């Protein structure tokens, strides 16, 4: 029992260390100065939010393809894993690429719950890419919840398209 507890603590610490390591990279364009000594990284116009601000459809696919989720789920199904393996292969060919993983939800459910769900979706996609050998510190995550839908109809087909992780290449 005691050993198991120690194991949990060690895993917890590892998660905390890995987590904080990648978190520190996740800064907005204005965050560099405040963080002190951390290099500032500009964000391209590719993020769904930047596109939405300019009146463009959020998040068109680049070299990395979107993956999709079931309602109220952040689990990766087999088609998503296949797509993530393709995305992982591209990333391993482009070792300097930095990518932001966006988690999105359909319109159903509360804004706050969906923002939390989007965070879990983005994290699930990132974690799988890391298990494929992509460097953790090249992947950041952000949740947009239900705020930036691709499709605006109230149909299952539309909701399915909106429940997605989208990958934005920030720079190579």
């Amino acid at each position, binding site marked *: 029992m005691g050993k198991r507890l120690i194991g949990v603590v060690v895993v917890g610490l590892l998660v905390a260390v890995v987590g904080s390591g990648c978190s520190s990279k996740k800064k907005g364009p204005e965050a560099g100065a405040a963080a002190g000594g951390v290099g500032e990284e500009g964000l391209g116009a590719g993020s769904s939010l930047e596109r939405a601000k300019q009146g463009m459809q959020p998040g068109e696919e680049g070299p990395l393809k979107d993956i999709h989720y079931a309602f109220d789920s952040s689990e990766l199904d087999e088609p998503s894993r296949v797509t993530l393996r393709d995305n992982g292969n591209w990333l391993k060919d482009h070792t300097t690429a930095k990518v932001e993983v966006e988690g999105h939800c359909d319109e159903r459910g509360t804004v706050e719950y969906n923002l*939390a769900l989007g965070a879990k979706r983005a994290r699930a996609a990132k974690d799988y890419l890391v298990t494929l050998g992509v460097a953790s510190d090249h992947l950041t995550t952000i949740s947009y919840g239900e705020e930036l839908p691709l499709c605006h109809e109230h149909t299952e087909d539309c909701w399915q398209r909106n429940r997605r992780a989208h990958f934005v290449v920030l720079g190579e």
Partner: protein
Amino acid sequence: MNRLWIVVGVAFGAALAAGHPCRAQVRGTIFGPGSRSYPVAVSPLKNLSTNASATDLGARFATIVDRDLTLSGFFKILDRAAFIEKPDASGYTADTINFDNWSVIGALALVKGAYTVEGDNLTLEARLFDVYQRKQLAGRRYHGSVTEIRRMANKFADEILAQFTGERGPFDSRISFVSTRDAKLNEVYVMSLDEGDLQQVTKGQTINVSPSWGPDSRSLLFTSYKRHNPDLYTIDLVSGRETLLSQRPGLNLGGKWSPDGSLIAVTVEDNGNSEIVLLDRSGKLVRRLTDNWSIDVSPSWSPDGRQIAFCSNRTGGPQIYVMSTDGGEARRLSFNGNYNTSPAWAPKGDHIAYVSRLDGGFNLFTMKVDGSDVRQLTQSAGNNEDPSWAPDGRYIVFASSRTGHKKLFVTDAAGASQVQLTHGGGDDTSPAWSKWLE
């Protein structure tokens, strides 16, 4: 039998005189929110000013009171066009009003009064009368700038509810919400209960979500993506000064001030996983409340500040839980359905409003704080979400898609009276009802 026909005949005659459909004038009808049973006439106020300006203030006052009383669900608002007494040619005290002119159009309650404008200053007196007993029930005099007429009307509507229900009404307060009425992405707004004094709080042209009121009803907490991360801000509505309170990587979401104004409960992110923590006024971590690999969001304080209701999917789908703000185990409250979110603890402490997914649609429910006595408030008219309680604990503001776009509605706590609060284009969501303004 004969007597009944006489009563009907009198009522019919009164209806004819007023140009109204037949309506019996019976005291002691069922009186409650949603009954819309108590006929009230709100007369435009008499203008006593010496100058000719501001002649519309008396009618504006009456329009705002009418609207508040409509929202309350207790009253039937009589049509101003049917009024026989004209305000500027009649008195506004019990001994100068001809009550027959009001009883004949079916009024049981009457609001009359007068106002004087000098420069920018407005002095206004309003009186509430019982038409049947021909006596004054309440009278108030208000002083302020001309721009305060809205608050004077809302305060008097609160007084009218106090007279008829024994409890002050909730109308001298404000609603914050987010809307796409002016932009593609949600901006934060505040307004009065009659949809007036609309103020756009954020002009960030980015995603803004979940505004909630500061303890003094002068400031808001909200989450904004302006730094490309969902950070928690507070903004003073008077000075416009904005302060970044929590900028932890990932979510800083759904912040709620404790009732005593000393702490903020907020959802933060721990490697993709959301957890509820308590921050102090400057945004420093005081205590972590939840600790598991599930979603934990949407904290709502109990009025005594000792417990928090929140939403967690630790058993699969989202459900409502409650836990002590000192920490410890959480207790599950909701067991009906597999998707329950958005808990809102009533100011009286006795109920929690929440949203439940039922047959694909979202509807408002209430339950007692032990999870018992579940009641459905809305019935599958569009999706009905984001409940927030009025300061008097008798009304709830929420967002509904029943008219197409999402708009704000007000219901009483039993769901009997549901009145549309906002109109126009765009989606209005995430309403938060302030405390009374003081």
